[in-house]
């Protein structure tokens, strides 16, 4: 760090945050030295994952915009009959609430992790995993229902054949992420419960697992908007 080299003019022109960026990126290979290495790596992984999901969603956009047959009405396709009434998209709405709730409990788990509250952290992480499993079982139900109705990756009785390909690819890949997330949460939660992080004195793993989990929720926000509601 060469604070002496920044003259007064720079100090007046640049805001403290911008000066911080300049200092970070000019310090050779250690831009993220203020961040826990695991956290920085997780963020970089999530960035690459963002590109993967964006490619899926862009592919979906391309297929839907170039389809000559009408796109199936998602409100009807994902409707459930409850009490003799067709309620549009209701299962997807419940799945959304389950995933948001899991994000809420995860955020609190991270918070209690920083307070070194072993029991509450582990319990909240288990609750998060449980919400994740709820989401997954509803997704399994949804897939089963659609497959029974004749939806295939190459065709479906409702309209544009591209619908099935986008649906199975996008929700399947997201479901895979949720599954991995649940496994990761269970592993970290059991380590928390056994006091592993109390011994090492570093609860960062909880926050890193949390980042991954929130990302899964974040992706769902985009899938919900573009695939189900559009």
């Amino acid at each position, binding site marked *: 760090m060469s604070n002496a080299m920044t003259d007064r003019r720079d100090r007046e022109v640049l805001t403290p945050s911008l000066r911080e960026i300049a200092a970070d990126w000019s310090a050779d290979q250690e831009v993220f030295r203020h961040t826990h290495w695991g956290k*920085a790596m997780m963020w970089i992984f999530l960035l690459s994952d963002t590109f993967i999901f964006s490619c899926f969603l862009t592919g979906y956009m391309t297929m839907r915009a170039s389809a000559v047959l009408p796109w199936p009405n998602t409100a009807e396709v994902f409707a459930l009959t409850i009490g003799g009434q067709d309620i549009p998209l209701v299962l997807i709405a419940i799945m959304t609430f389950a995933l948001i709730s899991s994000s*809420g409990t995860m955020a609190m788990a991270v918070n209690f992790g920083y307070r070194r509250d072993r029991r509450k952290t582990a319990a909240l992480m288990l609750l998060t995993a449980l919400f994740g499993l709820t989401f997954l079982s509803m997704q399994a139900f949804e897939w089963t229902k659609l497959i029974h109705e004749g939806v295939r990756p190459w065709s479906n009785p409702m309209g544009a054949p591209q619908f099935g390909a986008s649906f199975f690819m996008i929700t399947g890949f997201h479901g895979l992420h949720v599954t991995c997330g649940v496994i990761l949460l269970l592993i970290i939660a059991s380590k928390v419960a056994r006091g592993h992080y109390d011994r090492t004195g570093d609860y960062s793993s909880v926050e890193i697992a949390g980042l991954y989990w929130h990302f899964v929720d974040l992706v769902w926000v985009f899938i919900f*908007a573009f695939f189900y509601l559009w």
Partner: protein
Amino acid sequence: MQHEIPSTDTSVVHEAQHHPISLYLKVWGYLFLLSTLSYLVDYMHVQGIVRWTLIILFMLLKAGLILSIFMHLAWERLSLIYAILVPPLVLLVLVRIMTIEADYAYWTRAIFMGGGG
């Protein structure tokens, strides 16, 4: 977005973050509200440009809340924030290219393939 003015001592590591639990509950509530609103957009059969605007608006608000509060991005260093948020912007170029491509494919199918294909 509140941003702490970083201390001049760059060796300080921001680590332990003690935000009140009520903050997370509040964000949780907002996310529920926004999800309900975007569900209502579909339920009320809002169509056309209003529908797309509302969907995108609620989506971006939810994404912003998750990123800034739940993922603690609001309290990270600006270098990390920019490293995460700027690269995805190039995806807009991909989206633009693929819109042109999809338009071309659509009209090719409609005109030369008898609406099939």
